[in-house]
């Protein structure tokens, strides 16, 4: 089944390009660790999900590009075409002349309704091209104006027009120390609206990815291109095909549906984050070997101690001993020690994957009390290795990972809201203080729910 990607704003489009590029590059990089037949099944599955075919044989990404000003889309289209391996559809983009000015209200209340028909038409065309349609993957940032505001509007529209299809939003959490001054307002408004209309929110934090580039990849002068490539790598390792029901050659057909089913058991808890292991620069890769036991041990500790990457893990953190009462309400003021999960999904790719032991993830102490580990934990496998890694594992987790960042954003936005700074920019486009308060309330509730796990 196919996934239609909607790329919104500068961030969405820049990342979208890297994602498709990573997917196709991996699809063509055959490591020889599995059989040829296996590899072909993998490639076919990948193609079906993300690309459609043209007469010339060049795969066309199943994507719709939306931005309110033309520079980024032009760049994205030409980069894709230059790669020679794939490209975007000729008429798959929607562009205007003037951007949203980092104004969520402008993206949501002005650009949204004005361009609703054109954008939805484009999306519909893309959906019609799919033989069987799985759902939408919407890539956007929270800090700006188009990705955040127009993104929220489009997601809402998708919910109305395609009530039976799934929507997963990939959202980029901005750097803590400001890329955009009103980023906290934009983030609060985006999150609250998406919480109502999206099925799952897959979050990536710029700060975390930046650290991965600095510490693990050893890049000296980190550019957005580097950051986006790390992100694309993580997403690729989630979305590339995996076996269904433990049998080789048969790959899962409905990736989005399966993800939602396993990871979002309750609509109150929608925020997912991704951790992958290993991740390193190509030079280091040549000198490293891995065992499944080692990888999984690290990954489990990353989950428990809320580490963002495989370096600097706090090994002191332990799950509470079973038999003792649960740890009680998590307090945000103290350092978060133990990360309780609602649901986890581990995806393993590579050599000897059948021998990997994931028992450590089935420990009931890791999970909240209202879900049995047998429902809360799932593992997907494939022998086909991903990218250049002989063995790799990725964890998609619905847990308390994002509580602290969310709390931080709400706190800063609230402080700014109390002084009424910048509010006139939003009210002149139709977003009133009421709307802000609604958003704050919803997010406080989400924070409280997650804290109470």
């Amino acid at each position, binding site marked *: 089944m196919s996934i239609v990607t909607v790329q919104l704003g500068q961030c969405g489009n820049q990342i979208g390009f890297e994602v498709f590029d990573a997917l196709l590059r991996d699809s063509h990089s055959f490591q020889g660790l599995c059989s040829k037949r296996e590899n072909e099944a993998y490639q076919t599955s990948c193609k079906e999900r993300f690309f459609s075919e043209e007469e010339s044989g060049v795969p066309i990404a199943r994507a719709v590009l939306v931005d309110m000003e*033309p520079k980024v889309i032009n760049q994205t289209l030409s980069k894709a075409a230059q790669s020679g391996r794939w490209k975007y559809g000729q008429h798959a983009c929607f562009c205007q002349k003037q951007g949203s000015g980092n104004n969520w209200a402008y993206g949501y209340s002005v650009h949204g309704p004005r361009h609703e028909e054109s954008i939805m038409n484009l999306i519909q065309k893309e959906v019609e091209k799919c033989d069987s349609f799985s759902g939408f993957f919407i890539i956007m940032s929270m800090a700006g104006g188009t990705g955040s505001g127009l993104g929220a509007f489009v997601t809402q529209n998708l919910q109305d027009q395609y009530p039976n299809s799934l929507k997963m939003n990939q959202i980029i959490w901005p750097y803590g120390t400001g890329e955009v*001054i009103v980023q906290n307002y934009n983030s609060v408004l985006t999150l609250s609206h998406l919480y109502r209309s999206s099925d799952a929110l897959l979050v990536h934090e710029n700060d975390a990815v930046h650290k991965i580039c600095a510490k693990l990849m050893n890049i000296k002068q980190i550019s957005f291109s580097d950051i986006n490539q790390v992100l694309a790598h993580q997403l690729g390792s989630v979305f590339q095909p995996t076996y269904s029901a433990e049998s080789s050659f048969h790959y899962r057909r409905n990736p989005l549906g399966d993800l939602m089913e396993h990871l979002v058991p309750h609509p109150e808890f929608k925020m997912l984050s991704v951790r992958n292991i290993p991740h390193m620069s190509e030079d280091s890769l040549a000198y490293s070997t891995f065992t499944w036991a080692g990888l999984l041990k690290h990954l489990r500790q990353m989950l428990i101690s809320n580490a963002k990457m495989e370096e600097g893990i706090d090994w002191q953190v332990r799950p509470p001993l079973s038999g003792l009462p649960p740890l009680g309400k998590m307090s945000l003021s103290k350092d978060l020690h133990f990360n309780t999960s609602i649901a986890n999904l581990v995806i393993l790719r590579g050599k000897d994957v059948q021998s990997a032991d994931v028992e450590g993830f089935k420990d009931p102490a890791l999970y909240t009390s209202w879900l049995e580990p047998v429902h809360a934990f799932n593992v997907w496998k494939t022998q086909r290795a991903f990218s250049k890694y002989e063995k790799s594992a990725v964890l998609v987790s619905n847990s308390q990972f994002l509580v602290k960042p969310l709390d931080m954003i709400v706190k800063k936005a609230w402080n700014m809201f109390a002084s009424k700074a910048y509010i006139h920019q939003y009210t002149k486009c139709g977003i009133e203080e009421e709307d802000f308060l609604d958003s704050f309330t919803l997010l406080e509730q989400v924070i409280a729910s997650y804290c109470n796990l």
Partner: protein
Amino acid sequence: MTQSVVVQVGQCGNQIGCCFWDLALREHAAVNQKGIYDEAISSFFRNVDTRVVGDGGSISKGKICSLKARAVLIDMEEGVVNEILQGPLRDVFDMNQLITDISGSGNNWAVGHKVFGSLYQDQLLEKLRKSAEHCDCLQCFFIIHSMGGGTGSGLGTFLLKMLEDEFPEVYRFVTSIYPSCEDDVITSPYNSILAMKELNEHADCVLPIDNQSLFDIISKIDLMVNSGKLGTTVKPKSLVTSSSGALKKCHKKPFDAMNNIVANLLLNLTSSARFEGSLNMDLNEISMNLVPFPQLHYLVSSLTPLYTLADVNIPPRRLDQMFSDAFSKDHQLLQADPKHSLYLACALMVRGNVQISDLRRNIERLKPSLQFVSWNQEGWKTSLCSIPPVGHSHSLLALANNTCVKPTFMELKERFMRLYKKKAHLHHYLQVEGMEESCFTEAVSSLSALIQEYNQLDATKNVPVQDLPRLSIAVSLTLPCQCSGVISAHCNLHCLGSSDSSASASQLLFSLVTLLDIPIPHVLEQAVHFVACTRHFFFQVFQ
């Protein structure tokens, strides 16, 4: 892509404008090697087929035929504009874009604003409309003028109101040259204060600049160039004051170097909107991020580096030096010291080979030495444009919304009061039809109110930041499979701790009831009390 129109008013405005167009052509010539009329050029220039007479000559794509500036030139004396039209830039301007008169405004705001305003109102409107029609998507008017004279100050600000009425969706960015202390025009305080009122009310963003600062920067550069320190040679093209490679090769005028700085400011301001980059920043984002309250729209600017040394390798230390310099007093284009005042917001617009990690590293490094207002502790807006300015490998423009503009305004007010108390030269103004003493008193009180706002912000400077109490919500969820969670929202009655400082003691009571979509057993309805002492706090109740 959007277009901008430059409106240059008065002698100062036109001289700066002239330098601007010169440098703009130079920049585009350096970037656009193939001579194709692309969207970047179209933001400031039209492409016209000069063989076609009249209006039909615009060409939107393809090779560059003849570039015409999107500009309107206004002056009530002919000298400056005539010189432009006889100089090397004459082909860049359309004869239809000019409005001139002979007599001049006599350094009298009232003459510029009231007399010439009403006289040329229709013509102005027509020329502005024409220039707007030539634009596919007009985003911004850039007005360049001085505050101390008559035409730039009076007629320039008359225009603002007109633009606001006629083109309400288009931004108005004003570059204003403020009079220095040793200004030789006696009535400049009057002109400036009268103009300030208009700027307060009708401009979206003002970039105040003064001649003294520009002059100091020139002196600094000259020192560097002539000092001949061992191992340092300055690349001539890289001087922010230079116009080498530009069209005008005529004898250097005294203000040329200073005007070039302002021209560079405008080019760098618009660079991220015109050229590509990994983190774009459009002009509407400037207003959105840097203007927290409509009245506080004065942005202090600084440009670095002022020159490039001829060493080819730029180690990171030098890159970091560029960031440090942007915050130093010497590099500001106004007599102001932002480092020791309170920041409301700050924008860093970087051009050239600089990546996000360099930017972040420097923000982390400089943050501790800067003071930000309590509700905007991380008030940074950043942008990265890939194309560097001519002669540099990278550059930085910093825009600060900072209370350091206050001394400039206070000093202006003082000079005004010194004259006004003695009613000196007042009759020149009052004899103009439409001018009364109330114009003066209103203008002063408008300025006083603005100064008061900055004072209030400064008062919060060293107060430790307190986190405000948040909405507290009790959540009880029954088993997830029964999706109907019962949620009750408590309302929150809080008093902020009584503050010790007598000046701004304000207790705040707020209670809030919000209802969610899920049915709630009991609805709490309460009246809301709000006490607003400062402008900062005020809440409402919602059903």
